C-alpha cells in the first residue's frame, strides 16, 4: 500500500494500519535507536575536536589581546571596549579559582582512595574530655568531588567561550564592524538567544538536583558503601564491579531476589497499565452510551476518587483490607467467609489485591482522559459495523481499541514507565510485604523501586541501591527513548505547525 492509498483510508482503518506497521517495524526502530546513539557519540567527539581546532586557530591568528585572554579571562573583550562582558568572564575565573582553592581541591585530591583517616576519639588532657578528631568522610569526598568536576567542566565551557568571544571581537574589529554592546547582548537574550534565557534556570536546577545526584549514585554502585561502612566512623572505598557480580551470580539470594522482583515489576507495570486503560475506556463508553442520562453526575462520582489525595485513599485502603479490617468484618457479617481473607498478608493474594486497588485508583483517571477522544470516533463506523452484524464486543475490539491505541500511544508509554516506578501504590498498601525469607530484605509485592527505597532508607545498603537504580534506569531510559523517538507524535512534530 503506498502513501496515497493510505491517506484515503478511513481514520479508523488508518489507525489499524498504523498500529500494525508500528509492531512490524519495531526491530528496525531498535536498530535505528542504537545507530542514533552511535552517531550521537561520534558527533560529540567531532564537536570537541572542532572546539579544540577553533581554540588553536584563535591562538595562532589572535593578536596579543586575544592571546592574553587565554590567561586572564575577559581581557580580550575588555580591551576592545566590551567592559561588562569582560568583567563577567573575569569574575567567573576568580570565582572558580577561589572555589577550588578554598573548598574543591581538598576533596578532589582524595577521590582515588575516598579517604584514609577515620574519625578518632582522643583524650584531650587540658580539657579532661574525649574529643573526636575530624577524619575523612568518604561520602562528602565523593559528593563534593563530583560537584567540583561538574564545576570544572562548566568552567572549561566558560573558558572556551571567552576565547571565542575575544577572537570574534578581534575579527569584527578587523572588518571594521561595530562590536555588540552589552545592552545589545542583553536584548539578544530576549530574542535571538531567547532559548538561553529560558533554559538556564531549569538546567541549573536539574543539574544540581538530578544530574549531580545521579552521577553520585551511579558511582556509589562501584563502592562498598553499605551498612558496615558508614562514614565518618567507617570509610568506604572503590571495589569495582563487585556489587554487580554479586547481583548477577555471585550472591545466589541476591540474584534470585533481583530476578523475581524484576519479573514482578514487569508483570505489574504491564497489567496495571492495560487494566486501567481498558476498563477506564469501558467505563467511559458506558457513561457516554446513547440514552444514558445524568452523564455529568456519573462522571463526577468517579472523579471524586481522583481528587482525594492518593496517599489518603491508599492508606485508608490498607487499613480496610487488613486481616481485622472493615472488609473482612463486612464479609464475615454477611456470612460469606468464616476466616479472614489474607488480602495483604498472603503473597499471591497481596499481588492480586494491589492490582485491583490500583484499578480502583487509576480507572477514573483513564476514564477522564479517554472520554474526549472516544467522542471523536466517527459514529458511522459503529453504524456500519452494526449493519454488518457486529455486536458491541466485536465493535470494541475491532474499532474502538485499535483507534484508541493509536492515538494514545504517548500516554500509554508514560503510564507504563510511571508504573515501573510506582512507589506510592505498593509502599502505602503493603510496604512491599508480605516478607519472605527467600528474598534478600524484600517482600513479595516489592517492585524494584520499593526494594531500592528500602535498601536506602531502612537498610542503608547504598551500594546495592545504586546497582538496582542503575539497572532500573537503563531499562526505563532505553525503553522510553526508543518509543518516544519513534512514536508518531515525535516524527510528526514539524507537520503539526
Amino acid at each position, binding site marked *: 500500500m503506498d502513501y496515497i492509498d493510505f491517506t484515503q483510508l478511513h481514520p479508523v482503518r488508518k*489507525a489499524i494500519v*498504523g498500529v500494525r506497521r508500528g509492531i512490524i517495524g519495531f526491530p528496525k526502530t531498535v536498530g535505528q535507536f542504537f545507530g542514533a546513539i552511535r552517531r550521537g557519540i561520534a558527533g560529540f567527539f567531532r564537536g570537541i575536536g572542532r572546539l579544540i581546532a577553533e581554540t588553536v586557530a584563535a591562538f595562532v591568528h589572535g593578536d596579543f589581546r586575544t592571546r592574553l585572554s587565554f590567561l586572564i579571562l575577559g581581557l580580550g573583550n575588555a580591551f576592545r571596549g566590551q567592559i561588562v562582558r569582560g568583567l563577567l568572564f573575569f569574575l567567573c575565573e576568580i570565582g572558580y579559582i577561589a572555589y577550588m582553592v578554598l573548598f574543591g581541591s581538598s576533596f578532589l585530591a582524595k577521590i582515588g582512595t575516598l579517604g584514609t583517616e577515620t574519625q578518632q576519639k582522643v583524650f584531650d588532657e587540658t580539657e579532661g574530655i574525649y574529643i573526636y578528631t575530624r577524619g575523612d568522610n568518604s561520602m562528602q569526598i565523593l*559528593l563534593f568531588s563530583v*560537584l567540583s568536576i561538574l564545576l570544572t567542566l562548566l568552567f572549561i565551557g566558560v573558558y572556551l567561550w571567552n576565547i571565542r568571544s575575544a577572537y570574534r571581537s578581534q575579527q569584527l574589529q578587523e572588518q571594521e564592524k561595530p562590536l555588540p554592546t552589552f545592552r545589545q547582548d542583553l536584548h539578544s537574550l*530576549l530574542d535571538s538567544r*531567547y532559548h538561553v*534565557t*529560558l*533554559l538556564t*534556570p*531549569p538546567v541549573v*536546577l*536539574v543539574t544540581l*538536583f*538530578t544530574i*549531580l*545526584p*545521579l552521577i*553520585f*549514585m551511579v558511582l556509589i554502585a562501584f563502592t562498598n558503601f553499605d551498612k558496615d561502612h558508614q562514614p565518618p566512623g567507617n570509610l568506604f572505598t572503590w571495589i569495582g564491579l563487585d556489587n554487580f557480580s554479586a547481583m548477577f551470580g555471585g550472591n545466589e539470594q541476591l540474584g534470585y531476589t533481583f530476578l523475581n522482583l524484576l519479573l514482578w515489576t514487569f508483570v505489574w507495570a504491564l497489567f496495571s497499565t492495560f487494566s486501567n486503560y481498558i476498563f477506564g475506556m469501558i467505563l467511559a463508553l*458506558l*457513561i457516554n452510551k446513547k*440514552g444514558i442520562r445524568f452523564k455529568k453526575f*456519573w462522571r463526577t*462520582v*468517579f*472523579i*471524586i*476518587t481522583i*481528587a482525594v*489525595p492518593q*496517599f*489518603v*485513599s491508599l*492508606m485508608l485502603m490498607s*487499613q*480496610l483490607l487488613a486481616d481485622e*479490617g*472493615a472488609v473482612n*468484618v*463486612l464479609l464475615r457479617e454477611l456470612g460469606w467467609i468464616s476466616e479472614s481473607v489474607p488480602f495483604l498478608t498472603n503473597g499471591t493474594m497481596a499481588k492480586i489485591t494491589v492490582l485491583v486497588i490500583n484499578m*480502583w485508583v487509576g480507572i*477514573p483517571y483513564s476514564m*477522564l*482522559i479517554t472520554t474526549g*477522544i472516544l467522542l471523536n470516533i466517527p459514529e458511522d463506523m459503529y453504524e456500519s459495523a452494526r449493519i454488518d452484524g457486529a455486536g458491541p464486543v466485536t465493535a470494541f475490539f475491532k474499532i474502538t481499541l485499535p483507534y484508541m491505541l493509536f*492515538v494514545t500511544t*504517548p*500516554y500509554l508509554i*508514560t503510564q507504563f514507565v510511571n508504573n515501573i*516506578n510506582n512507589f*506510592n501504590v505498593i509502599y502505602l498498601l503493603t510496604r512491599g510485604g508480605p516478607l519472605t525469607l527467600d528474598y534478600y530484605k524484600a517482600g513479595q509485592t516489592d517492585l524494584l*523501586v520499593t526494594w*531500592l*527505597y528500602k535498601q*536506602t532508607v531502612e537498610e542503608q545498603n547504598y551500594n546495592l541501591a545504586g546497582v538496582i537504580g542503575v539497572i532500573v534506569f537503563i531499562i526505563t531510559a532505553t525503553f522510553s*527513548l526508543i518509543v518516544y523517538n519513534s512514536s508518531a*507524535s515525535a516524527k510528526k512534530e514539524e507537520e*503539526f*505547525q
Partner: protein
Amino acid sequence: MMKSYRAARRLTNGMVYAILAVLAVLWVLPILYLIVLSLREEPGAYTPYLLPKAYTLDNYTALFTDTALFNYPRWLSNTLFVAVCTCVISTVTILMISYCFSRLRFPSRRRFMNVGLIMGMFPGFMSMIAVYHLLKLVGLDQSLIALILVYSSASCLGYFIAKGFFDTIPRALDEAATIDGANRNQIFWKITLPLSQPIVAYTALTSFIAPFADFIFVSVIMKDNYQNYTIALGLYQMITRENLYRYFTRFCAGAVLIAIPITILFLCMQKYYVEGVTGGSVKG
C-alpha cells in the same frame, strides 16, 4: 419490530444503569466510610463491627487543639506555603521549557529534550541522599525552602505534556507577531500564554497538588524536625504501629479535612485538567 427494538434498548440501558450504580457504590463507599470513621468516638483501627457505636466531632477539634505531638495546623500551613511557592515556580519553569522546545530552534535541541526525558525516568528518591548532603552544605537541610527547591526541580522534567500542547498552537501567529516587531519574549508572554489557558491551569493544578501527595522527599529532608513536616508525612506518622490504635480516627479526620479542599479545587478545574492532558499528551 420497532417495539421490540425499543424494548431491547431499554433493557441494555437498564443494565448499563445497574453496572454504573454498582461501580459508583464501589468507588464512593470507601470514601464515605472514611468520613464515618472520622466521626467515630471509640479509638482503635480495627473494630469487630462496621458502624461506630457513638459519634463525635472530637477527632476534628483535637487536630487543632491537641498539637503537642501532632501539630496539624502547623503542617497544614507548611504544606500550603510549599504548595503555593512550588506551584508558581514550577508552572513558570515548565511553561518556559515547553515553549522553548516547542517553538525555538537552536543547536542540540533534540539532545536536550532526550536528556530531559531520560532524567525524568530516574527514580527521584534514589538521589535524595546526595540532595540531602548538598542542601546541608548550604545550610538548607530540614527547611521548607529545600522542599520547594526539590519539588520545583523535579517538576522541570515533566514538560512533555505542555510541549505537546504548545505544538498544536499555529506557528503563523508567531510569524505574524514577528512581522509586527515583537521579540520572542513578547510572543511568549503576550501571544502563546494567553492562548494556553488549559495547559497553564493543568500545570498549576498538578504542581500545586504534588506537595500534598509526596512523603518520601519530606521524610528524607526533614528527618525528625516535626515542626516542618508537611501534611502527608504528618498523617503518615499517625498510623505507624505505635500510634495506630490511639490516633487512627484522628488520622481519618485529618484526611477528610485535607481531601475536601483538594476535591473542590479539582472539580472546579476539571475542564482544564482534561483539556490539558488530552491536548498535550495525546495526539495521533
